[in-house]
C-alpha cells in the first residue's frame, strides 16, 4: 500500500508560506520517497528553492515513515531546529501532516497533495485499489473493485459508455466491468454478475470515521 501524492505548484507553496520566513522541512522515507515527491532529493531541492525565495531553512529531516510513531522521536531529535522555525513544511502525505500535528502547535504546511491509496501493479505503476467503502464485494467481482476501477463506481454491470473494453472517460482506461466480466467468465462464475447489488450504504462507519481497538 502506498499513499500517492503530487507536489503542489511552487506558487501555491510560496503563497502558503507568506509571513512564515523560517521553515523546517520534513519528508518521508516511505511513500513520498517511492513516488519521488518527498524523499531526500526532493527535500533538498525544496530547501534550495526556499532559500532562493529568501526563506531561512532552520533544518530538514526525512522521517522513515511519517505516519507512524517514529514521527514523535524524529521531531524530538530535531527539537532545536524546529523551535527556531515559524512552521513545518511537510513533504509527506496528509497522514504524515496529521501525525506531526499531534506533537507540535506550530503551523504545518503541506507541500504535497494526497491523491489516493494505491498498490504498485508493476514497477512504477501505482493504481488506486481500495476506496475503503466498508462493504467489500471483491469476492463477487473476481477481485476487481468496481468502486475504484469504474469511473462511476457502478456495482451492477457496465454503463452504456463502455466501448471495446475501454471507458468513456478515457480511451486508455480499461472498463472495469469488461475486466470483471472476462475474469468471472474464466472462473466459470459469471452468475455472480447476474446478482442484483442493492444501493450502497454510505454510512457503514458514520463520518468522521474512527475506531478504537481494545
Amino acid at each position, binding site marked *: 500500500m502506498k499513499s500517492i501524492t503530487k507536489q503542489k505548484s511552487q506558487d501555491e507553496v510560496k503563497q502558503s508560506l507568506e509571513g512564515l520566513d523560517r521553515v523546517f522541512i520534513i519528508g518521508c522515507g516511505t511513500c513520498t520517497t517511492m513516488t519521488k515527491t518527498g524523499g531526500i532529493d526532493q527535500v533538498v531541492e525544496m530547501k534550495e528553492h526556499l532559500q532562493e525565495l529568501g526563506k531561512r531553512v532552520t533544518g530538514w529531516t526525512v522521517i522513515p515513515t511519517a505516519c507512524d510513531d517514529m514521527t514523535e522521536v524524529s521531531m524530538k531529535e530535531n527539537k532545536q531546529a524546529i523551535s527556531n522555525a515559524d512552521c513545518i513544511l511537510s513533504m509527506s502525505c496528509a497522514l504524515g501532516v496529521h501525525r506531526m500535528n499531534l506533537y507540535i502547535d506550530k503551523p504545518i504546511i503541506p507541500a504535497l497533495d494526497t491523491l489516493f491509496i494505491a498498490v504498485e501493479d508493476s514497477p512504477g505503476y501505482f493504481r488506486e485499489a481500495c476506496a475503503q467503502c466498508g462493504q467489500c464485494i471483491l469476492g463477487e467481482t473476481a477481485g476487481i473493485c468496481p468502486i475504484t476501477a469504474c469511473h462511476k463506481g457502478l456495482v451492477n454491470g457496465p454503463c452504456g459508455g463502455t466501448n471495446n473494453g475501454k471507458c*468513456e472517460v478515457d480511451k486508455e482506461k480499461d472498463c472495469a466491468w469488461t475486466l470483471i466480466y472476462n475474469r468471472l467468465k474464466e472462473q466459470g462464475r459469471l452468475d455472480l454478475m447476474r446478482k442484483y447489488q442493492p444501493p450502497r450504504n454510505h454510512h457503514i462507519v458514520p463520518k468522521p470515521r474512527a475506531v478504537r481497538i481494545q
Partner: protein
Amino acid sequence: MVSRFKEALNSGKFVITSEVAPPKGTNLEKMLHHIDLLKDKVDGINVTDHQSSVMRFPSLGGCLAIEERGGEPIMQMTCRDRNRMALEADLLLAYSRGIRNVLCLTGDAVPVGDHKEAKGVFDLDSLQLLRTIRQLTSGQDLGGNSLDGAVEFCAGAIVTPEAQPIEPQLIKFEKKVDGGAEFFQTQAIYDLENFSSFMKYARQFPVKILAGIVLLSSARMAKYMTENVPGIFVPQDLIDELSSIPKEEMLAKGIEIAGRTIAALKKDSLCDGVHIMAIGREEVVPDILVAAGLMKKPVT
C-alpha cells in the same frame, strides 16, 4: 390517469417516440416549438437530462411543458446529479404533475461535459433507479417508510445492441428486465442484421423494444459518431452513400436513410417501435416519419 405511452405499447401498434433537448438557459421557445411540432405525431417525447453532462434546463421542466401542451412526456432520469433522496422526491413531483413515463439511465460521466469539476453522484445506478420506482409504486420509499400517496410509472431503460463485447450489456439488460423495465429504447442501430439477432434474443423477455434511430445529418457526423460515440457503429456503406453526394443534399439523404431503416424494421416486425433522435434537427422528424411511410406528407 394512465400512461398513454403504455397504452400505445400494449396496443400492438408500431410505437414511435422522439426526443427534445432542453435549452441552455430560460428561453424555451425552440423546445416548445419542437414539442408542438411532435406532440400529435408521436406516442411519447423524451426529454434529455443534461445530455452529455452539459448543464441545461431540467428534464422534469421539459416534461411539464409537454404535459401542459397535451403531449405525452417520457422523463429521462440519470443518476449522475442527484442522490437517492433527490431522485425519489423528483419522481413524487413528476407523478403529482401528470408525468407517467420514466426512462432510467446511469448518466454520462461528469468530465465529458461542461462542468468538469462537479461531483458525479451515482448514489444509485440505472438498475437501482428502476427498482426504486417499483418500490415507490408499492407505497414505500428507499428508507422503508410508507408514502402518503404512491406513484405509478411506465418505467424503461436503455440497451446498446452493438456494444463490444455484447454479453456484459445483455446481462445488465436482463437485470433491468427483472428490475421492472417495461420498455427499452436502444442506442442507435444501423446494422439491421446485427439488430435482428439482438431482437431474436430480446424477444424471450416480456418487454417492448424501441429501436434507436439517430439521424445522420452529414457524412462527417456519421464518421464522427462511429469513431467517437460508444456503442454506435455506422456501416461503411452508409458513410459512403452520404459521402458520394453534395454536402447540401446530405441532410435529405440522412432523412431517407432513417426513413427506410424505420420502414424495414416495421415491415419485418423486427421490434415494437422506434425512438427517433434527430439531435438538434428536431424540425425534420416529421419528414423522417413521411420517409418511413408512417405519415402522409402534410399539405402546405
